[in-house]
């Protein structure tokens, strides 16, 4: 046995300080990100007196009553249902219309398809539509109306651009072959294109739905009737009333955060691919 192998056995493995530093940085940032969530979890399990005495002490009493209180007082079931309805209705209408906008543009089946695409791209740079949109809704009698609220969200130009780019990767020979077999335009888009562009569809649906779900400004502007509030607005109103009762408020926030975090683990890759679509090539 040579001297070097003995040395290897006896001496501890050389520490890679670069890796140690990297882990230190990653853990530091992780604490910054997990800290607020852990505080939320901890607070949601405490009683009010124990929170006032020491806000950061570990919850030993596991006061689950907070969740029951939050669920009932915050009118959670109603607001959640509203959020689900708005999100699914608007996303469904949007994606169905968007596919029929994106496909002919990607294929050049309509005249001036390039110009149409530009029309959707410039939307990203135009001024916000806030004020005239409000005037429009007001004059159509759709103010404080769930249907009017859903209408606000059936448009998303970035999604169209993502879909067009993806459809371009579907071979054009498919169109020809399907047409030769007597397949009509609608049926082709519906039963051939849709399944083929599923990854892009998923990305656009997820991005669009999250946007609606998290929207706070639109419900504040357009919905005055409490029965129409989505959960975001509901939480803010609840904060206004129970703002000083952090344990109950934290439980209310937790009730919304937990399912979203679980959903996030499944949806993460769709969000990431939406973000980075086209950005790498510039």
């Amino acid at each position, binding site marked *: 046995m040579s001297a070097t192998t003995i040395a290897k056995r006896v001496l501890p493995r050389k520490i890679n300080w670069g890796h140690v530093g990297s882990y230190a940085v*990653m853990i530091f940032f992780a604490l910054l990100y997990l800290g607020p969530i852990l*505080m939320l979890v901890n607070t949601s399990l405490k009683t009010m007196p124990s929170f006032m005495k020491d806000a950061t002490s570990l919850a030993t009493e596991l006061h689950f009553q907070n969740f029951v209180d939050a669920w009932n007082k915050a009118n959670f079931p109603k607001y959640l249902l509203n959020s689900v309805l708005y999100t699914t209705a608007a996303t469904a209408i949007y994606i169905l219309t968007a596919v029929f906008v994106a496909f002919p543009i990607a294929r050049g089946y309509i005249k001036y398809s390039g110009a149409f695409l530009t029309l959707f791209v410039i939307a990203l740079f135009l001024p916000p539509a806030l004020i005239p949109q409000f005037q429009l809704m007001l004059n159509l009698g759709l103010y404080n109306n769930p249907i009017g609220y859903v209408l606000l969200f059936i448009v998303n130009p970035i999604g169209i651009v993502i879909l067009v780019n993806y459809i371009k990767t579907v071979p054009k020979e498919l169109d020809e072959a399907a047409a030769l077999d007597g397949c009509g335009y609608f049926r082709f888009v519906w039963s051939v294109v849709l399944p083929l562009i599923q990854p892009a569809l998923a990305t656009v649906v997820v991005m669009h739905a999250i946007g609606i779900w*998290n929207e706070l400004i639109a419900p504040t502007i357009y919905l005055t009737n409490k029965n129409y509030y989505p959960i975001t607005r509901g939480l803010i109103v609840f904060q206004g009333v129970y703002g000083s009762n952090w344990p109950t408020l934290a439980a209310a926030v937790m009730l919304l955060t937990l399912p979203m975090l679980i959903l996030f683990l499944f949806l993460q890759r769709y969000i990431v691919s939406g973000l980075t679509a086209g950005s790498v090539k510039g």
Partner: protein
Amino acid sequence: MSYHFGRGWSKLVPYLLLLPGLLFYFLISLGPSMATAVYSFTDASGLKGAPIHWVGFDNYREFLFMGRASLDNLAALQRTLIFCAAVTLIQFALGLFVALIVNQRLKGSNIFRTIYFMPVILGVVIQGLMWSLFLFPLGGPMAKVLSWFGLHSEFLGGQPTQAFMWVIAIQIWANMGTTMMIFIAGLQTIPSELYEAARIDGANALQAFRNVTWPLLTPSVNTNLLLNVIGSLQAWQLFLVLVGYRNGTQVLGYLVYATGFGQTSGSVTSSFRQGYAAAASIILFLLVLVLGMTVQYFLQRREARILG
């Protein structure tokens, strides 16, 4: 591109099916967006049936040059620029730094990546409430940390500048993950042979970064800078959740909302001044346009220099 699905009238089917989506887009998004410019020259109020008059440049004049109110507006404008500069620079630098570290593919780095990206899905309401609790001045976690050093702070309820700085920090916290993800996507397109070659040529880590990573990361750098500049100029929702419409903290986006839809303070709701708000939002739009195009111009010059 020739159309295969029939001839004659049936060639119109794509147009027919495209129509709903296009119509919605014009009616709900593109049309109103353009009409903002028109409304900015009127005294529209936002009350149903109230008459609307043409007032020329009055709204702009009032916004920029009329007494105390316009001083507040200009302060808000300045604050918007500070917010934009601070958020863009810090978020860009942190995003790049974290992306480089996570991209080393050490064990568990995927978990860390997921953790940093998590706030993106939560939205401003949860982000804001979470941080309000974390910054709870009476013995919350951050207050406790300060107390170890004998310090005390009111955080979001303290001096306006202080509250403003906290919103900047939380804005960066919330969106750093997006910047990081775009950088990671860019980093993964750089072929590892280049690093191999750099190492054989005797380059150290810093030199490899300067001569391989940084130039080849140009597309992600451009995307991130533009997204951050435009995004932070228009961002204001965290202000709504964290501090409300408080003097000394307003940015332009919040000002547009508050003047257009009334600002409730206590039981008093100020009147809706939508023509004025439209003028303010056009000013914000011009700011976005000018800054966005300037950044774009310099980025393209830089790109040409690197590639050329």
